[in-house]
C-alpha cells in the first residue's frame, strides 16, 4: 500500500480496493452493436479521478472507474466521516478538520487544491454541488485537470435559462411563450402574464432541480409568488433573476439523454419519463415513455441533438421537454451533467454513461452512431428517500439501522448508504435508488411491485409506501399520469394493505399488557428467530 506523497502526507490514507459488486453494463453489452475492427484503441490519459461529490453518485462513478482501471480519490468530511462512498475509493483525502464555512463540495479552490495534492488528473463533479458550475469547469482546465463534463461555455449558456431560451428559439425548438429575458419585478411579471394569459410559471434564470419555481394562477398571487421565487433563486443559485413562461397544464415531463464528443458528434439515447414529481422533485423515472411512439421519439430526439449541437455540447447531458395532452412538446431546459435517473437509460440502451463521460473527457470519439442505439426492455427507478409520506414528504433524517435491498436478477440498486449510515440533514434525503427492469412496461411494473416488498429499511421513514401505492394505481398502470398526478390524483400518499393497521393495534395492545398487566404470555414460543419480548423491539424508545 502506497502512501500518497504530499504536503500533508499523513492526511492521506491508502485503502484496499474493495471487490466489485454490481458491474455496470459496458458498451459491448446487448443493445448496441459496433464493428470491432473499426475500434481505435485510445490511450487513457485519465489516471486518477477526484470525485467532487458524495453519496450514491460517488459510489457509482467509482464503480465504473475501477472497471476502467482508473484510480479514484474521495473526500472525507466531518459531516459523514464513515460514509460508504469512502470505502470505494483508492485514495481518501481527509478534509474533516476543514474549518471553512463553505462545504468542501462547493469549495472550488479547495477541490482544485485537493486534486493537485493527491495527483488526480481529472475531476468528476457528479450531480448537484458544482456539477453545473462553469467557473469550476474553467478552473479545472486552468489547472490542467480534465473536467469530466461539458465545456464551461456550454455549462454557462445552458445554465442561464434566459440564454438557453434564446438559443433554443434560434434553433427552431418549440417553446412555451414567455418573457424575452429576465424580468425586474412583480409588476413587469404581471404585465407579461396578462399578455400570455394565466397560469404562468416563474422560473429562476440560473435554476434547476425545481428550486426557484412558482406557478401563478391569478394576478392576486403574482406579488407573493414573485418574491418567493426570487428569494429562493437567490438563496439557491446566488442569482435572484427570474423569468416568466406560460404554464403548460398537466404536461408529461419527458427528457432526452444525449451524448456528444469533442469531435462534434452528438446522439441521443432515447427518453426518460419523469412525470411522477412532487414540488418539481422527481420521485420515479422510467425509460422509455409510453407516451412516445417511434415517430415522436425521433422528432423530439432530433430536436434534443440540435440544441446540444448549438452549444457544441460534449459529455452526457439531458434535454428536458414538457409534452402536453395533444402531444405538442416544449423545450424546458438542458441539464449539463449526469442525472440522478441515468440508470434507467443505461438499462434500456446497455451503455454505461459514466464510462462514456470518461471516454469523451479523454478525447475519444463516440463509438456509436444514432442508428446503433436500440432501446430494449423497460426500466423503472424509484427514489427511496428518507421522507415521511404521512407528513407530506417531509424529510426524516436519521440513522439507517438496517438496510436490506433485493438481489434479484431484475433489480439494480444504486446507493451510498449501508446499515449504520446516517441520512444527514445537510444533504439530500436519498437512501437508495431501486432500479427495476422488465421485458416491457407491464413486466417492469410487476417486478417493481415485488421488489418494493423486498426492501427493508429501518431507522427512518421512507418513500416506500408511496411507491407501493403508485404501482397499484390505475393511472400509473395505464400511463396516463402527468406532472400533477401526486397533487391531483391521490387522496393519500401511501399504501397499506387491509389488516395492517389492525396488526399494529394488536402489537400496541401487546405492549400495553406487558407494561401494565405483567402478563408472562408475551414471551411465546417462536419456531425460528429469537424468542423476544416486544418491549425490547427498540432499544431506545423515544418519549412523546
Amino acid at each position: 500500500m502506497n502512501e500518497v506523497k504530499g504536503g500533508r502526507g499523513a492526511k492521506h490514507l491508502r485503502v484496499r480496493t474493495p471487490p466489485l459488486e454490481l458491474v455496470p453494463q459496458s458498451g459491448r453489452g446487448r443493445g448496441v452493436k459496433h464493428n470491432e475492427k473499426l475500434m481505435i484503441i485510445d490511450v487513457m490519459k485519465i489516471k486518477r479521478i477526484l470525485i467532487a461529490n458524495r453519496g450514491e453518485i460517488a459510489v457509482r462513478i467509482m464503480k465504473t472507474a475501477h472497471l476502467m482501471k482508473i484510480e479514484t480519490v474521495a473526500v472525507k468530511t466531518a459531516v459523514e466521516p464513515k460514509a460508504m462512498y469512502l470505502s470505494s475509493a483508492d485514495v481518501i483525502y481527509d478534509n474533516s478538520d476543514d474549518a471553512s464555512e463553505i462545504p468542501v463540495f462547493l469549495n472550488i479552490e479547495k477541490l482544485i487544491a485537493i486534486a493537485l495534492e493527491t495527483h488526480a488528473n481529472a475531476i468528476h463533479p457528479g450531480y448537484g454541488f458544482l456539477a453545473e458550475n462553469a467557473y469550476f469547469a474553467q478552473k479545472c482546465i486552468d489547472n490542467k485537470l480534465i473536467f469530466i463534463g461539458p465545456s464551461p461555455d456550454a455549462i454557462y449558456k445552458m445554465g442561464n435559462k434566459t440564454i438557453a431560451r434564446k438559443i433554443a428559439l434560434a434553433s427552431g425548438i418549440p417553446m412555451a411563450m414567455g418573457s424575452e429575458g429576465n424580468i425586474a419585478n412583480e409588476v413587469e411579471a404581471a404585465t407579461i402574464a396578462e399578455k400570455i394569459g394565466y397560469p404562468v410559471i416563474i422560473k429562476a434564470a440560473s435554476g434547476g432541480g425545481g428550486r426557484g419555481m412558482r406557478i401563478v394562477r391569478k394576478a392576486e398571487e403574482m406579488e407573493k409568488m414573485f418574491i418567493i421565487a426570487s428569494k429562493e433563486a437567490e438563496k439557491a443559485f446566488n442569482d435572484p433573476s427570474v423569468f416568466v413562461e406560460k404554464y403548460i397544464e398537466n404536461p408529461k415531463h419527458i427528457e432526452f439523454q444525449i451524448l456528444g464528443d469533442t469531435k462534434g458528434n452528438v446522439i441521443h439515447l432515447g427518453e426518460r419519463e419523469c412525470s411522477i414529481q412532487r414540488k418539481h422533485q422527481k420521485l420515479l423515472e422510467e425509460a422509455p415513455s409510453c407516451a412516445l411512439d417511434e415517430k415522436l421519439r425521433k422528432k423530439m430526439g432530433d430536436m434534443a441533438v440540435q440544441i446540444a449541437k448549438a452549444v457544441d455540447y460534449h459529455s452526457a447531458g439531458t434535454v428536458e421537454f414538457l409534452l402536453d395532452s395533444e402531444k405538442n412538446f416544449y423545450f424546458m431546459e438542458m441539464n449539463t451533467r449526469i442525472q440522478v435517473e441515468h440508470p434507467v437509460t443505461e438499462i434500456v440502451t446497455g451503455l454505461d454513461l459514466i464510462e462514456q463521460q470518461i471516454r469523451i473527457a479523454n478525447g475519444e470519439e463516440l463509438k456509436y452512431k444514432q442508428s446503433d442505439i436500440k432501446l430494449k426492455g423497460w426500466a423503472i427507478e424509484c427514489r427511496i428517500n428518507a421522507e415521511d409520506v404521512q407528513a407530506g414528504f417531509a424529510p426524516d433524517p436519521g440513522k439507517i439501522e438496517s438496510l436490506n435491498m433485493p438481489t434479484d436478477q431484475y433489480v439494480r440498486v444504486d446507493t451510498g448508504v449501508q446499515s449504520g449510515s446516517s441520512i444527514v440533514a445537510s444533504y439530500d434525503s436519498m437512501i437508495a435508488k431501486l432500479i427495476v427492469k422488465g421485458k416491457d412496461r407491464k413486466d417492469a411494473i410487476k417486478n417493481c411491485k415485488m421488489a418494493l416488498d423486498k426492501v427493508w429499511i429501518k431507522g427512518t421513514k421512507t418513500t416506500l409506501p408511496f411507491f407501493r401505492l403508485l404501482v397499484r394505481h390505475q393511472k400509473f398502470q395505464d400511463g396516463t399520469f402527468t406532472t400533477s398526478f401526486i397533487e391531483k390524483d391521490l387522496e393519500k400518499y401511501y399504501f397499506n394493505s387491509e389488516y395492517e393497521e389492525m396488526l399494529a393495534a394488536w402489537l400496541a395492545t401487546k405492549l400495553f399488557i406487558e407494561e401494565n398487566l405483567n402478563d408472562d404470555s408475551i414471551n411465546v414460543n417462536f419456531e425460528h428467530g429469537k424468542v423476544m419480548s416486544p418491549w425490547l423491539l427498540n432499544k431506545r424508545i423515544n418519549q412523546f
Partner: protein
Amino acid sequence: MANDKLQIKKLYALSSENRKFSFSLPLKHTIRIGKREYDVKLKADEKYGTYILWKNRKYPVEIVRSSQNKYEILFNDISYIFTVETPFSLKRKKVLNSNRGKIEKEIIKAPMPGKIIDVLVREGATVLRGEPLVILEAMKMQNEIISPVNGTIEKVTAKPNTNVMKDDLLIEIKL
C-alpha cells in the same frame, strides 16, 4: 391491585383517526378474519430485525415512541399511533372529552428540521386559513408553512436565518 387487573376482559386500541380495535384478554396470538383464525407472530432475526409474521408474509415493525398508554408503531414503513384503553379508562376518557371546552389556540411547530428563511407574519396580525406563515428550508427545498386556521398571531418564536429542530415552536395563533 392484581385482582383488579384480572377483571379486565377487554382492551381497546384507539387510532389517532379514532378507529377502535378491541382485543379480548388474555390476548390471543391469532386474529380472526371472517370464520378463520390467523396466527400473528412477533419475531426477530439478524437480517430483518424485528418483524411480524402474518399470512406467510413478514412485515417490518418498530416501536417509535411510547409514553403511558400511547404507542407509535411503525408497521411496514407506515406509522400508527394508538392509545390503549381498558373499558374503565375508555369510559373516563369519554366523560373528559365531553367536558373539555373548545380549543382556543393553534400552535404551529416545525414539521421537519431545517432553517427558517423568512417569517411572513407579525404578532397581532390576522391570518386566514391557507395563508403562508413561515418559509422553512429543509434538505434542498423551501417549504411554506401554512396557517391551518383563521385567527390572530399571538406569538412569533421563529426567527429568520435560524435553524430549527422538528417540533420546535414557530408560531402561536389565537382563534
